[in-house]
């Protein structure tokens, strides 16, 4: 009923607008078309000027309303660089925006048709054109210069002391692998993936680097002020590791591992204090369309101190022992002393293709 009502009102509005528009044509004929046209011309010229003024006020108002809702201080050192670049660009383009939009609407208003003015024959001026080729070129050189300086800093090699975390996207969730004490991720192969056999990452158990790798889901723990290098994979389709608070982002591509690194600046607890929001949490979002659950592919990042991190990691059992309980020294059935020595010495069949 309500819908019919709305449709009826819309139809009626349509009809009235149309009748007015139609009538205005007849009125124009009665009053003299030329005169009516000049009147409309004045109205539109004025509207353009009004649009400029109200529009600029609107831009200011919009900024006042919304600036508090964007993310605030970046939570990583790279984020600081990215935000700085952003503000340099806003300043520069802001000036260009104001000048060009002002000229556009002001000229439109100022040079509206008038019986007293004749248009000025002005087909070209090479000097002027040279000036406005060179000035944008210089401005853009500045932007490219800053941009690339930061870009190479951000995409350069991770520091030697960076911790490594493997992030794997899948429909629709996140998996993480920590390299454990040896600091090296064990090799894996996608055909080994088998959640039933407790091997969701497809680790190759013959590789001894895999013995201490820890596998967790949905929640990634990082250490504050310690560089972290993410090794990024995907299982099924392309995903994207989006870390808005850190201003970092990298696609997760099946078959082609990617990396990125950054240094978290604040622990989650510090951010709760900074933002004043008790519900604050670093979120990991999928930023590349990946199917029907794309919008809900959420992970959580916990940034904590080294001590807290060590405690957390110590509480996790390496996936090798989860998958091979018979090798678990803590397992009551087995003689713990013999476990490590009994392991095959990292022999991997050479024919088998491996991916780190």
């Amino acid at each position, binding site marked *: 009923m309500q819908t019919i009502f709305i449709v009826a009102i819309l139809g009626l509005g349509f009809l009235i607008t149309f009748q007015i528009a139609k009538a205005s044509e007849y009125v124009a004929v009665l009053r003299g078309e030329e005169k009516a046209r000049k009147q409309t011309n004045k109205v539109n010229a004025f509207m353009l000027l009004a*649009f400029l003024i109200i529009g600029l006020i609107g831009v200011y108002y919009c900024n006042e309303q919304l600036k508090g*809702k964007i993310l605030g201080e970046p939570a990583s050192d790279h984020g600081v660089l990215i935000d700085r670049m952003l503000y340099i660009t806003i300043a520069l383009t802001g000036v260009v925006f104001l000048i060009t939009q002002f000229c556009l609407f002001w000229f439109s208003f100022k040079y509206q048709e008038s019986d007293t003015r004749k248009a000025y024959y002005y087909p070209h001026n090479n000097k002027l054109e040279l000036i406005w080729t060179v000035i944008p070129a210089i401005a853009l050189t500045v932007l490219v210069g800053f941009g690339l300086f930061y870009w190479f800093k951000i995409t350069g090699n991770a520091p030697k002391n960076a911790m490594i975390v493997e992030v794997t996207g899948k429909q629709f969730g996140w998996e993480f692998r920590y390299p454990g004490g040896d600091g090296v991720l064990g090799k894996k192969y996608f055909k080994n993936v088998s959640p039933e056999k407790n091997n969701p990452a497809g680790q190759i158990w013959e590789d001894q680097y895999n013995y201490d790798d820890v596998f967790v889901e949905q929640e990634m723990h990082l250490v504050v002020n310690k560089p972290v290098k993410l090794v990024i994979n995907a299982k099924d389709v392309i995903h994207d590791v989006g870390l808005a608070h850190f201003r970092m982002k990298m696609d997760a591509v099946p078959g082609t591992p990617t990396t990125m690194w950054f240094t978290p600046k604040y622990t989650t607890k510090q951010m709760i204090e900074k933002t004043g929001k008790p519900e604050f949490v670093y979120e990991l979002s999928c930023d590349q369309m990946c199917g029907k659950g794309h919008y809900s592919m959420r992970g959580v990042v916990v940034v904590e101190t080294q001590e807290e991190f060590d405690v957390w990691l110590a509480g996790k059992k390496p996936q090798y022992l989860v998958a091979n309980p018979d090798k678990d020294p803590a397992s009551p059935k087995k003689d713990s002393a013999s476990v490590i020595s009994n392991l095959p010495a990292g022999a991997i069949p050479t024919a088998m293709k491996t991916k780190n």
Partner: protein
Amino acid sequence: MNVHAGMDTAHAAHQDDHSHHQQSFVSKYIFSMDHKTIGKQFLITGIIWAIIGGLFSVLFRLQLGYPEQTFPILETFFGKWAKGGQIQPEFYYALITMHGTVLVFFVLTAGLSGTFANFLIPLQIGARDMASPFLNMLSYWFFFMASVVMISSLFVSTGPASGGWTVYPPLSALGQASSGSKMGMDLWIVSMALFVVSSLLGGLNYISTILNLRTKGMSMTRLPLTIWALFFTAVLGVLSFPVLLSGLILLLFDRNLGTSFYLSDIVVNGEILPNEGGSAILFQHLFWFLGHPEVYIILLPAMGMVSEILSVNSRKPIFGYMAMLGSLFAITILAFLVWAHHMFVTGLNPFLGSIFVLLTLLIAVPSAIKVFNWLTTLWRGNIRFTPATLFAIGFVSLFISGGLTGIFLGNSTIDIHLHDTMFVVAHFHIVMGVASFFGMFAGVYHWFPKMFGRYLNSTLGYIHFWVTMIGSYLIFWPMHYQGLAGIPRRYLDKRGWVSFNGFPELDKMITIVSIIVFAVQLMFVFNFIYSIFKGRKVTTLNPWGANTLEWTTPIRPVHGNWPGEIPEVHRWAYDYAKDGREFIPQTEPIGENESKH
């Protein structure tokens, strides 16, 4: 020039033959080989697509603005896709995918350059028709078949393609990953292949017509900028669409024949696929090698028409014709060299990325030249605000706003944060979507009298402009802030997130405004259809006082355009306000005492 003259007579004789016997309805309106009719066919098909594509956006805006609300009427219409009156995720993704595909390809490529290249090229260069009227007709009918296939994909039980208009594999390659990647995706590929054929047939025709069929005296530097823009558009299309086609064929192989061009190391839904050694990134290179020139395929015709319309209606020559031409050329070249700026965060080699940053920001230079030249064209003019003029001014405003945000995204450093966020959505909708639509509207209002011998109602035109202008800024300006807040694109419900949940009122506002703007577009369509039959009749040959050749044809140009000889051209198209005269048509010989420009 003798060759030209000879051709003219041949054409004229041919023309006489035609006027003797009446054309049947079918050969006049359906399988027509008249470029004007084909142009109108493209326009009308484009309008139908625009209504469909626009309606899709209204539906998904409903979901974005009111994620918690149910709309039982949606279930009535869409059944399981809107179960309980709520837009289901699969449906949402199908809607955005189809919205993008339809608007980018079917409306702003075929509907825009298909319409105006067909309609304007022969009329403005002084030709009887296209170089190959038959291929031209085929171009429309391939487009029509592409439309039929694309529409039929909407009715497949597993739904139409729903992996985004960029159809990145593996998502688009694996039916297991998304129901939209089943039958719907095959139809999408078939439809796009037909579409590519259509645009190639059209493009080759436009290029050869412009190069070979210009009337006597119409040298390349006397061409109106519309023609130059359409020429470069055709060049872009001819060189880049085949690359998309090859990319899509490989995708079709991966989908149906078990090849591994794009697939490697995939475990989907617990199923381990045998494919190894493919590269998903390869597709993105192939796609964006078309995808970026595509942006200019959409923008250039709008730029050309805006140049023409601003000059005619400010009663002044376009400022810096050669610079305008040079910048069109520079944009055309650079359009092929910037594709990987869509791929900064795909794991691209950072050094390669840096080259693309440089080339991408380089495009801002010719773009800036164009903007400054448009501004100087308005400066000290005597401007008539027809609806076409207003849309042209609106185009320049939007092109500035959207172009400047491009400088953010083209800079890889900032792109790390803004890539695939709502900022990108706001950026390309303003600069490519709305701006090109404004160029198209400007063209339709300006050349409607030539197309149909009647005027569009201008009061409705003014309402159309103001609501669309204000509405577009209200919709897309605040959307940049959502992007700065890191909200990813293609999120249909943000309530599950702590970080992205800050804009529910804004989303509601955008939804309401977009419904209003859509309603006003329907009003435009109504005005369009009504005016074809009942609009005010055109009574003068040259209602806008323009210099170009199309206004020397009869009010309703015949098949063959000029009943007698094709007029000869003696000057460029922009002698407005010269030597104290308001305008001097291109056909007027240069006077003895005339000043040089």
